[in-house]
């Protein structure tokens, strides 16, 4: 009944291939090993690519060394959707590749899944995009150099109420981050005297916004607060918004900046003109550091545009370098974490700092408007809220 001999074949084949693999990873050297767990494939592949670009750019500028040691950057793909692969990748980086620092984490679930690894293995874990506030509370070895969702939402709400927007209709996608953005916006906006005239949660998988735009057109609020997964949904929403002449009806849109960031802006196209958003980085942020950064970025990656995720990758490596300078090259986790708390420096996005008690990032959030700047769509910064701590934490 059972295919006897075929199983013998399998056993032999698997054993043989296994031995060859084991031999390969035996040798070791003493470079500074940094392991990045990123969504390199799958629906969020562009996140992984941008963060890796930023990290490699920093190494290029620092001659491939940090605190005098050559840096070996190991990138592992976690497909972005399966947190158990993120945990597996983190575990292998720590146990097998013996990395000194963990980094990356494009999405919240992968950061949550890997946090216990950082605690048990006592390895610093630098979050470079996952945006849920609670991530830094999951382990004392977590640092964040990107942003949190409430940290982006509060400033835009503040700006809206201070600039004559009285009645807002909130449209958010019906998933975790959408609920958090909606709650934070309502809290800050109503506190400032604004009024929410309507709210709707669109299903996460929604190929067509037509019906919701119709509802908004009927209610005619001053502005719409929009929060949907960036990508084809932003494109579809903006196309519908313009096509149905809501813009002509004087309805404006306010949103968090990840909806008009450089990776997606060209796909949204001219429909994005006039869109007001809040984010910590824009390609046209004028500072000498950013000018150098964008030049280096285009030199290395002509086909892509530098966006906030690449800057988070860049700053992640910079945080490691500056912390190791402070600890004199000592990479033991507790010393590293102690030195990293309160660390501040000027990044291409502007001045940023690691909050000593929450280990989260404090940074300036800029209010920007989409305009065409010498032929290219850009988020032109015209206002800012300095040193914003993450309001999401008590």
């Amino acid at each position: 009944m059972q295919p006897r001999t075929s199983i013998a074949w399998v056993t032999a084949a698997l054993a043989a291939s296994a031995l060859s693999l084991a031999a390969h990873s035996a040798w070791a050297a003493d470079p500074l090993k940094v392991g990045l767990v990123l969504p390199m494939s799958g629906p969020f592949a562009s996140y992984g690519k941008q963060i890796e670009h930023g990290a490699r750019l920093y190494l290029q500028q620092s001659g491939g060394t940090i605190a005098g040691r050559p840096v070996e950057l190991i990138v592992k793909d976690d497909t972005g959707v399966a947190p158990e692969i993120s945990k597996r990748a983190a575990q292998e980086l720590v146990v097998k590749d013996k990395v000194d620092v963990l980094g990356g984490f494009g999405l919240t679930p992968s950061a949550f899944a890997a946090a216990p690894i950082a605690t048990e293995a006592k390895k610093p874990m630098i979050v470079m995009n996952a945006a849920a506030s609670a991530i830094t509370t999951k382990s004392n070895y977590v640092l964040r150099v990107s942003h949190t969702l409430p940290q982006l939402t509060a400033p835009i709400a503040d700006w809206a109420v201070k600039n004559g927007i009285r009645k807002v209709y909130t449209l958010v996608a019906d998933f975790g981050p959408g609920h958090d953005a909606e709650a934070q916006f309502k809290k800050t906006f109503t506190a400032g005297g604004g009024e929410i005239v309507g709210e709707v949660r669109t299903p996460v998988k929604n190929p067509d916004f037509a019906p919701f735009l119709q509802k908004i057109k009927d209610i005619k609020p001053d502005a719409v607060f929009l929060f949907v997964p960036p990508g084809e949904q932003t494109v579809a929403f903006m196309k519908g918004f313009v096509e149905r002449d809501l813009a002509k009806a004087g309805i404006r849109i306010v949103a968090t900046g990840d909806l008009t960031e450089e990776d997606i802006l060209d796909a949204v196209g001219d429909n994005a003109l006039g869109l007001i958003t809040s984010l910590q980085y824009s390609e046209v942020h004028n500072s000498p550091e950013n000018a150098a950064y964008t030049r280096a970025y285009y030199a290395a990656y002509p086909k892509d545009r530098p966006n906030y995720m690449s800057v988070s990758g860049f700053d992640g490596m910079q945080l490691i370098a500056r912390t190791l300078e402070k600890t004199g090259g000592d990479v033991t986790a507790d010393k590293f974490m102690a030195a990293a708390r309160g660390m501040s420096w000027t990044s291409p996005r502007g001045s940023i700092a690691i909050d000593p008690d929450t280990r989260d990032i404090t940074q300036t959030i800029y209010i920007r408007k989409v305009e065409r700047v010498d032929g290219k769509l850009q988020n032109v910064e015209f206002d800012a809220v300095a040193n914003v701590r993450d309001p999401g934490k008590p």
Partner: protein
Amino acid sequence: MSLATFDLTPLRRADRWHPAELAFWLLPVAAYLVFPDNLVLLTQIAITALFCLSLDLILGYAGIVSLGHAAFFGFGAYAAGLLAANGIGDPLAGLAVAALASAALGFVTSFLVLRGSDLTRLMVTLGIAMMLYEVANKLTDLTGGVDGLQGIEMTPLLGRFTFDLYGKTAYWYAVAVLFLLFWAARKLVHSPFGLSLKGIRLNVARMPAIGAPVNARLSAIYTIGAAYAGIAGALLAQTTQFVALDVLSFNRSAELMLILVLGGSGSLYGAVIGAIVFMSAHHVLSDMNPEYWQFWLGALLVVVVLFARDGVMGGLRRLSHAAGGLRKGAR
């Protein structure tokens, strides 16, 4: 040939363990020694093998096609996850609750799956899984929604073995559960019940004519399959100490069917070998080329279908027959 001299051994010894099978089950021990640093990967291969086994029972043995088997996997994962997140961190209790929960869900939905052709069953199972996905996403405060279920604390297995960083406990726990359930599935396949399932798959019209209640048998195996999938889901939730929406996703069901067909449906070993081959290939290719590993994996699948019809086991069976032929010829 008279009654006296009739040799019954082929039927009596049909379920005897063949030495090659015993050698096969030494692989986990060998893998533990050769790959001490990849225990989390090996644990997940064992869990996927169990999940694939559950689909094999339904598809390979009873002929029920399903593109929504993740519904039971996810249901079990959330059941065990919620149990652990709310104080009962004992792993075995988690498995039991997950098995019961998924079995109940399987039993209820089994009546929807009994009618219709392959395509209808594909779509009904898909619809059920998608609906569960939407519900899990809606109940964000219960399941954590897209951000995932946090706060899963596992108490040590059997009171002694803690779930540590290196994943030793998690590995042996997963392998033990896989072997136990594989052994039970093997007994089931060789039992009268298993024989009647094969009869249903080979000629469903004949079964009522020999007095077999076809729908009751299909419901039973669908429920057992669902329980197996639920336990696999619970194992993942406990060893990863985290559950996210993707445990219910379409990708997981589609990939599972891939793994089973790759391994060769209709043989229990097909499910286990499919999981080993697919996940190792995925792991190795992904390390070599993090961005475009999917291209090579796709190529592997196409090659397997073109040259090893009905999966690795099919190919091996032909190989071993060819080799067998040689051996017989040689003898």
